[in-house]
């Protein structure tokens, strides 16, 4: 794309002064991160499509009303909006796609039960990316939230702690559990994969 080398701020300015292609570049730049974050959070592709549209529509409204405060952190900003849209949706629909667990609770066996069927068979039949998505989707909500915010939104642990109303140590701890759970699950599934391919 012609404008793809421009910064987010330049693209926003161009869009507001009449260049719709600049907005298309912004959408192109962030659509997969926004969509993936919502999908992994909500675990429903159709819903993720709708909520992703809602995020970008909010962005357009804020821009055209002159309410966007450009601090050079569009990625974090838009993924924070995505997070808020998910939380609002869950509240309105009383749909909580997670179970609350103590932060220090290692969930490997529970995760395994949940992810076992789909993740194992997906690993065998398809590729590890699909399986990893499934493993992420099966993490407890709080761990998934921190992982997605830190990794895709580039939000600092301090920002995540503030946004989710927990201490910095809790945010870091949740990330640690998320990483541990994923690593252990990957190992478990890799083993299942190898045993299927190379039975004793």
């Amino acid at each position: 794309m012609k404008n793809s080398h421009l910064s987010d701020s330049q693209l926003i300015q161009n869009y507001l002064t009449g260049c719709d292609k600049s907005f298309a570049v912004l959408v192109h730049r962030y659509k997969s991160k926004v969509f993936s974050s919502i999908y992994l959070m909500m675990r429903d592709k159709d819903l993720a499509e709708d909520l992703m549209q809602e995020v970008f529509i909010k962005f357009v409204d804020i821009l055209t009303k002159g309410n966007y405060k450009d601090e050079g952190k569009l990625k974090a900003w838009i993924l924070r909006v995505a997070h808020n849209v998910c939380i609002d949706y869950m509240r309105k629909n009383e749909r909580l796609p997670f179970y609350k667990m103590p932060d220090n609770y290692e969930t490997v066996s529970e995760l395994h039960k949940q992810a076992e069927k789909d993740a194992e068979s997906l690993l065998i039949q398809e590729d590890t990316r699909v399986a990893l998505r499934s493993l992420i989707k099966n993490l407890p909500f709080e761990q998934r939230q921190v992982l997605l915010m830190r990794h895709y939104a580039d939000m600092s642990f301090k920002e995540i702690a503030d946004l989710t109303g927990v201490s910095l140590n809790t945010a870091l701890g949740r990330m640690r559990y998320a990483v541990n759970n994923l690593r252990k699950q990957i190992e478990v599934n890799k083993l299942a994969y190898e045993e299927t391919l190379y039975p004793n």
Partner: protein
Amino acid sequence: MKRRFTQIDTIKFVYEESSPMQAKMYMKSLDNNDKTFSCFSEMIDLMSDMDDVLLEPSQSSVDKILVYAKKSRKVAS
């Protein structure tokens, strides 16, 4: 006494949230301590896997957004 680095230290280092002093010490430990190094490598692998799992939304969703953006800008200007 040598400092032992925890998994939280690794996470902070990988995500560039260590202080410059902590980062320096961590780098040293990466060279000298297999356990730290293996924890670091696993984290880097996981991060790169995370980057691979991104999904694309449908083109129709993208088109709807772009149509809305075009209309809204025209109305606003």
